């Protein structure tokens, strides 16, 4: 049987004039037509795309907002300002009207922004951007510079301040002049000392020093690269500290830092401004009848309050006091006006201050109904943050299409919203997991997270989006700066992923560099000497906008490289190795085993050692140690004071509490417990260490990870700020180690 040969005739023979086959031919024709149509559509699509680009290009050539335009006023311009319904506010329209005719914005920036097509507060009925194509460009004022009839004329900034307008129409009011810092509370400092605490000082964003009081709570910060408490204070220790605060006349608060909740005392502040919640509740009540808006405003003292206004209320100016207060607080006032010259947005913008985030211990745990209500609000937050993240991304995409460097700014803003969203989800999960057995500690932690979001994360977002500070300019331009040893500077930089260099332990310690944003992740590179070699790691941090609260969860999971491998094995406290002698924790003993080891340890760690330890090792290395005569006890010297109270070989009454490192919570080394030691030296084994300051632990044994610099006893010339932060020093990377003694203390980051 011959194989059948295919032919159309054969097909026709078999199937006859098959309609299906006819259909195939027709379908082929249709496909061809479709293909042609597709080509046509694609051509049109590309043509539209080109047109869009041309359109954008032409916008770049448009006159800046401050320049006058002959375009007519938009159709939806609101009527002139109307009286506020809030007659009982002392700082209402009547107070503002007296300023109306006093002048205009200085120089060419005198015309208010007119990019918006609505008046007063945020109008949810505002046309969508797509519907706004026919709106005139910004600056719909007549060429003579005078506002159109019926529109308010706004005055310029107060003396000493100047305005800067950006392309989005926001006006930044930058004030010059020295910030006057309030005096430090001497009584509070004395009360802290008298109560057994250690006064600590940190700097606010305005450069003023703030005081808080720290009590021992059983944990010690460790780690060269990232600081972490070796153990968190217990609930009892926190309660004891809070009681100590109270008895010292200070306010006890809890901060979440370095992976632990830590109690500290702060001075009760005389708030210059009342809380806003009351005025907001009142305004909400007044506005409940509908058709009214709640508006945020500033009073004569520059304090924020809320008022209920009519829909078309026009706020003409921002109180002068608000500019001054904003400058005093270390911020810059950002103002935006609508087409009619009415103030639509006014906010004092500054970076968040993590030092300012603390909570009072909650009195109780909310019941299930309240938890449910909170859960709904958190869900609402997630939705809102997601929406804002997408909006910011859209703006970033637009700037990318125009080639503007502002893309960097808005890409970060989008990321920061995304991080904040993640944080809210974490809080939700936390509440869900612990719903059945929520404790006061859980509530403290959640409350802290919420406060951090509000006072740091959200403030940072607005700061990055609107500020023109050098720091934000660095983000926009991609240029880097230097934090030196200023940990606060670094923490702030990582929250906004600003390119910086940071030397946590000075120039002889590890070096950290934030290089910028890649694929929505903040890239951090770290290098640390380990013995004779240099280890490094690269971290691609996802939720960078929340700062580094616990390096083990916030940083290390996103790292890779030899340094990470080492830290993974030894923990974040890792660090320090002496070639041929010891590595990590072992160095605590090995360095003191004999003169040779002591010399090698001195060569390796150099000036990273605290003065006392350096002195002891030097004595040992030079054969001057009083213990050298007896080899039996070489391994015990010089003996860390931290271990004396724990090792149980000495009498309790030998240990003055002020000579013990109460923070040190680790058990003593095993060989420290060998018999005979106490008998031999009769407990007099404090030599050759010098006495320590009675106000705090002055000496700490060189510990693996803490870079051998005591937390409360910094290297000469280094000082500390805000607890354990070193003063900024000039960063010198790659130079040989030199004693820190001669290092000048530089107060301002900009001077580095």
């Amino acid at each position, binding site marked *: 049987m011959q194989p059948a040969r295919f032919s159309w005739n054969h097909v026709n023979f078999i199937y006859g004039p098959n309609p299906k086959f006819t*259909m195939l031919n027709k*379908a082929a024709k*249709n*496909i061809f037509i*479709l*293909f042609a*149509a*597709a080509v046509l*559509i694609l051509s049109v*699509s590309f043509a539209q795309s080109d047109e*869009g680009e041309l359109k*954008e290009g032409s916008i*770049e050539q*448009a006159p800046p907002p401050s320049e006058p335009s002959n375009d007519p006023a938009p159709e939806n311009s609101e009527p002139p300002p109307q009286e506020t319904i809030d007659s009982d506010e002392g700082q209402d329209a009547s107070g503002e009207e007296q300023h109306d005719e006093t002048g205009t914005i200085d120089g060419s920036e005198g015309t208010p922004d007119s*990019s*918006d097509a609505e008046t007063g*507060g*945020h109008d949810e009925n505002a046309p*969508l*951007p797509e519907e*706004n194509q026919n709106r005139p*460009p*910004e600056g719909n004022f007549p060429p003579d510079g005078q506002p159109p009839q019926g529109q308010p004329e706004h005055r310029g900034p107060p003396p000493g301040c100047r305005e800067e307008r950006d*392309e*989005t*129409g926001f006006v930044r009011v930058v004030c010059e002049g020295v910030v006057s810092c309030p005096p430090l509370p001497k009584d509070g400092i004395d009360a802290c000392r008298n109560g057994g605490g250690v006064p600590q000082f940190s700097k606010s964003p305005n450069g003023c020093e703030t005081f808080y009081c720290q009590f021992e709570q059983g944990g010690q910060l460790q780690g060269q690269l990232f600081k972490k408490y070796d153990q968190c204070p217990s609930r009892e220790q926190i309660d004891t500290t809070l009681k100590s605060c109270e008895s010292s006349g200070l306010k006890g608060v809890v901060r979440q830092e370095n992976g632990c909740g830590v109690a500290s005392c702060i001075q009760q502040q005389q708030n210059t401004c009342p809380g*806003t*919640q009351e005025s*907001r509740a009142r305004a909400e009540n007044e506005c409940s009848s509908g058709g009214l808006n709640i508006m945020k405003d500033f009073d004569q003292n520059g304090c924020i309050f809320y008022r209920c206004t009519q829909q078309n209320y026009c706020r003409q100016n921002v109180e002068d006091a608000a500019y001054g207060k904003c400058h005093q607080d270390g911020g810059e006032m950002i103002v*935006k006006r609508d087409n009619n010259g009415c103030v*639509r947005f006014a*906010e004092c913008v500054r970076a968040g201050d993590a030092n300012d985030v603390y909570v009072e211990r*909650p*009195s*109780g745990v*909310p019941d299930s109904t309240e938890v449910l209500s*909170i859960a709904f*609000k*958190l869900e609402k*937050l997630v939705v*809102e943050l997601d929406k*804002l993240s997408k*909006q910011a991304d*859209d*703006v970033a*995409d*637009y*700037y990318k299409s*125009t080639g503007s460097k502002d893309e960097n700014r808005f890409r970060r803003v989008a990321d920061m919203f995304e991080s904040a969203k993640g944080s809210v989800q974490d809080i939700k999960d936390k509440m869900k997991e612990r719903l059945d057995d929520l404790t006061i500690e859980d*509530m403290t932690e*959640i*409350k802290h997270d*919420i406060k951090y*979001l*509000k006072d740091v994360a*959200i403030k940072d*977002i*607005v700061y990055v*989006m*609107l500020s023109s500070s050098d720091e934000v300019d660095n983000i926009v331009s991609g240029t880097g700066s230097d934090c030196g040893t200023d940990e606060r500077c670094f923490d702030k930089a990582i929250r906004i992923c600003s390119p910086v260099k940071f030397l946590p332990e000075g120039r002889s310690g590890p070096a950290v560099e934030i290089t910028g944003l890649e694929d929505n992740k903040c890239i951090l590179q770290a290098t640390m000497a380990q013995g004779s070699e240099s280890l490094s790691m690269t971290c691609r941090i996802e939720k960078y906008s929340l700062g580094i609260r616990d390096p083990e969860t916030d940083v290390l999971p996103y790292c890779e490289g030899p340094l990470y491998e080492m830290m993974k094995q030894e923990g974040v406290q890792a660090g320090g190795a002496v070639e041929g002698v010891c590595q990590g924790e072992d160095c605590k003993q090995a360095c003191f085993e004999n003169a040779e080891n002591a010399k090698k340890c001195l060569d390796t760690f150099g000036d990273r050692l605290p003065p006392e330890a350096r002195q002891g090792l030097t004595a040992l290395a030079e054969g001057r140690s009083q213990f050298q005569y007896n080899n039996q006890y070489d391994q015990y010297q010089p003996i860390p004071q931290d271990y004396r109270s724990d090792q149980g070989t000495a009498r309790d009454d030998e240990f003055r509490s002020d000579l013990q490192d109460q923070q040190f919570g680790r058990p003593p080394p095993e060989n420290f417990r060998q018999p005979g030691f106490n008998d031999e030296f009769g407990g007099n084994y404090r030599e050759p260490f010098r006495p320590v300051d009675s106000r705090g632990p002055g000496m700490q044994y060189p510990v693996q990870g803490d870079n051998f610099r005591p937390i409360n006893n910094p290297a000469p010339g280094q000082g500390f700020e805000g607890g354990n932060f070193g003063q900024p020093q000039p960063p010198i990377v790659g130079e040989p180690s030199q004693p820190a003694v001669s290092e000048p203390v530089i107060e301002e980051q900009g001077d580095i």
Partner: protein
Amino acid sequence: MMNVKSAFMLLVALSSLVFMSGCVGNDSPVKTQEQASEAVDDIATDVEGLQNTLDDIDTDLG
């Protein structure tokens, strides 16, 4: 019958082409400086609402 099939095929083809050309996934609402300004304005205003919500939660937490 034929017309229905053709129309269906046309629809499928057009949808595929539109999707492949990126028109669907790349529809950013911000195309002009003015819209960018408006979007920034909206974000800044909405952030205020976020802070109020956070304030409320803080109060609820006691």
